């Protein structure tokens, strides 16, 4: 018995005009029907109207994972029960699922664990992973319903006028939406009503999602945050301008994540902040000299960002342990899962303490001064060195050559130097080399990876993907080798601390021993895999691929 609906959206941005257009629509319908307000708005099919207004809240992760996957998550409260609705932009009805929820707080972020045991939670678990679902837009919609009567006074169609508005910190009205609802057996009359509305100036037929309108009003855009560098640089930019643009982009990412870190929304805010800090430090090493800062200034900022990096390390390390915990428990062969509970409790307690230290640091005047001064310096450099490095000529008519050359030259020089370091150090590693040599190689590899990412817009995409793919596999191998070693050392030191604090039952220590044994096995496997990975990256073919990339083509 669900009636078919035909939708219209009022054009423009002026609420006063919207009222006039709705009035014009009612007048147009009045030429053919008697239009009378419905005493109580009928519930729209599939909605949980409370009779007066309908609220809705949409969620996504901070990095827009749902939007990128083409799905929308909406929370709809209702008297008869509230629910989460997951719908797909693709025309695939199977993708749409709902999950009843009780006691849901719409304005708070939710981790996927809050949705456990339901179809929406099951569908989103792997996509969302450790990221929180954050409310990105919320609306309240008041609906006025009108009956369209024929000459017998019979309702032959209904007009529903939705007046949505964004709620929350940036409230505001959204364009009204009109819909003609069919009454069964009176399709012709509903079609006539649609035709009358189609002729009304200022009304557009269509069904743009309300979510899209709400986002636009709040100034948000799906994908407006990404942890990728994606700096807006071009090959002809002066090197200093390009360097400042890259560093400003990294600072934007640091600032964008600060709030999420302090609110402890999910672990990835800190992860993204740390990555951008590390990239900043690498960038300063790679091309800090072209910024025309004094050596003291450069040293001061490098030290500042090292401080931020160090500040964040303990919390992040504990986050990694806790994120890996379910997998660690699953990997136990001899010990029971419960044996590790004191270990988890210890990790959580320590994380709380470390997090307090971290937040004090991020709220400190030192942190504020570092980031604010850094932004001011970079903005100044960017403004001074904007524009093209080539094509300009000096008074004597000679081609202008900015200090440090163009971004293209900078990218080629510094990326090549970073590659040579990796190739040389990697080639020197033998099966007998100490672990530290591999750790150093990993650092150099990270610098190369960052150099490639910073200048990615200047490279040919296919050649870039080839080089980065090989490097990523090498780095994953070196990362596994080092991270497992760090984790083993940490577990040992935690075991000692737990023992000293009398918080370590014997079974827990045994289980922790089993965990370290597993980590040691993974480390050996990574070490055994190193040569193959390095050869794939830095053999003759690999060197050719890199040379082609830096020349601006493919091997």
């Amino acid at each position: 018995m669900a009636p078919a609906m035909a939708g219209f959206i009022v054009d423009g941005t002026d609420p006063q005009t919207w009222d006039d257009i709705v009035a014009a629509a009612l007048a147009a319908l009045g030429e053919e029907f008697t239009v009378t307000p419905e005493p109580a708005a009928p519930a729209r099919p599939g909605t949980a109207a409370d009779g007066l207004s309908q609220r809705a809240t949409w969620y996504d992760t901070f990095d827009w994972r749902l939007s990128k996957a083409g799905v929308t998550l909406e929370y709809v409260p209702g008297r008869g029960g509230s629910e989460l609705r997951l719908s797909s932009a693709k025309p695939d009805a199977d993708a749409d699922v709902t999950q009843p929820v009780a006691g849901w707080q719409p304005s708070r972020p939710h981790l996927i664990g809050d949705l456990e045991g339901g179809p929406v939670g099951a569908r989103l678990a792997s996509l969302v992973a450790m990221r929180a679902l954050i409310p990105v837009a919320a609306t309240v919609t008041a609906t006025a319903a009108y009956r369209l009567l024929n000459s017998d006074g019979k309702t032959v169609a209904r007009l529903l006028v939705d007046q949505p508005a964004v709620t929350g910190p940036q409230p505001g009205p959204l364009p009204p939406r009109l819909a003609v609802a069919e009454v069964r057996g009176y399709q012709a009359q509903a079609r006539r009503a649609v035709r009358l509305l189609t002729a009304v100036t200022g009304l557009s037929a269509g069904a743009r999602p309300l979510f899209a309108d709400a986002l636009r009003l709040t100034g948000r855009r799906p994908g407006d945050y990404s942890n990728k560098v994606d700096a807006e640089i071009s090959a002809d930019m002066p090197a200093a301008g390009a360097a400042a643009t890259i560093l400003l982009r990294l600072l934007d990412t640091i600032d964008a994540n600060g709030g999420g870190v302090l609110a402890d929304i999910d672990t990835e805010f800190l992860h993204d902040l740390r990555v951008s800090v590390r990239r900043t430090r690498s960038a300063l090493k790679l091309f800090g000299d072209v910024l025309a800062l004094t050596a003291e200034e450069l040293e001061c900022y490098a030290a500042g960002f090292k401080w931020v990096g160090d500040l964040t390390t303990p919390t992040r390390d504990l986050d990694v342990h806790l994120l890996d915990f379910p997998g660690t428990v699953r990997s136990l062969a001899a010990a029971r899962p419960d044996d590790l509970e004191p270990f988890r409790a210890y990790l959580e307690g320590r994380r709380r303490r470390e997090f307090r230290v971290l937040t004090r640091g991020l709220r400190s005047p030192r942190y504020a001064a570092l980031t604010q001064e850094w932004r001011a310096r970079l903005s100044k450099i960017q403004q001074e060195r904007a524009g093209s490095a080539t094509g300009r000529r000096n008074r004597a008519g000679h081609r202008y050559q900015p200090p440090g050359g163009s971004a293209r030259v900078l990218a080629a020089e510094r990326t090549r130097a970073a590659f040579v370091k990796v190739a040389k150090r990697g080639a020197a590693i033998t099966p007998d080399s100490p672990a530290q040599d591999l750790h150093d190689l990993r650092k150099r590899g990270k610098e190369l990876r960052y150099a490639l990412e910073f200048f990615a817009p200047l490279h040919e995409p296919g050649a870039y993907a080839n080089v980065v793919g090989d490097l990523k596999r090498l780095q994953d191998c070196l990362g596994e080798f080092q991270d497992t070693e760090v984790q083993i050392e940490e577990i040992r030191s935690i075991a000692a601390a737990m023992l000293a604090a009398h918080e370590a039952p014997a079974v827990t220590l045994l289980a922790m021993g089993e965990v370290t044994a597993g980590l040691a096995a993974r480390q050996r496997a990574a070490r055994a895999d190193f040569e193959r990975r390095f050869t794939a990256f830095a053999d003759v073919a690999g060197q050719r691929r890199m040379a082609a990339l830096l020349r601006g083509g493919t091997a």
Partner: protein
Amino acid sequence: MRIYAIYNIKGGVGKTTTAVNLGYLAAEAGLRTVLWDLDPQGAASFMFRIKPKVKGGGKALISGKRPLDDAIKGTDFDNLDLIPADFTYRNMDLLLDDAKPGGRPDDAPGGKPARRLSKLLAPLADEYDAVFLDCPPSVSLVSENVLHAADTVVVPLIPTTLSVRTLEQLAAFVGEFKGFRPEIFAFFSMVDRRKKLHREIIEQLAAPRGDVARTIIPSLSVIESMSVWRSPVAVIAPGNAAAKAYRALWAELRAREGLASS
């Protein structure tokens, strides 16, 4: 899906008002409801401001050429639809008889022509929770069909001696059915308590018979004004005694069936 036939051999006893009011109350209670106006006079269709016309007439519906679904019209009320009357329903006996499969003579009582309506209604089971059949006054193949299709036969009675006789005749007729027999739910309608005869008959009949409801629908002008306002009494005058009486009747009917009224 539960099928209620509003039936009495006699005319003018309040069948249409009963069908319209109970149908409305069922829909209001959240049951997906359809009312079929089987009376060629089309009074129920008129009450809902729906033209008493079916495309292809009764023949197309009864023969199955046009699915019943096609004829359904939405009323002005949520959950309540209507299959309108059509003047060709006056020949429905003939239509039902013609519709027997293969054209074989099959006019034994309770035979296939008598169950044609049941078959036509069966596909609506997924879509509706309640069907109300507003029947024309007669004893015919139509009424036999209606009685075979119904789970409950709702019988409005005017408290007169003749009216009471018809209830006995109906009970006897249904009692002869082989297999499923609908429940009979009779009630007094258009009751004027100022009339001695009305009071006496109600007292005589209501007590000994289990199939007569305790609820009585009084004779009130607001019920007559339904045809002026073209709406159920619960819409015209929700606080009126008539509206309350119909609510009580619906509640008693549902309770008799062991179902909640809302």
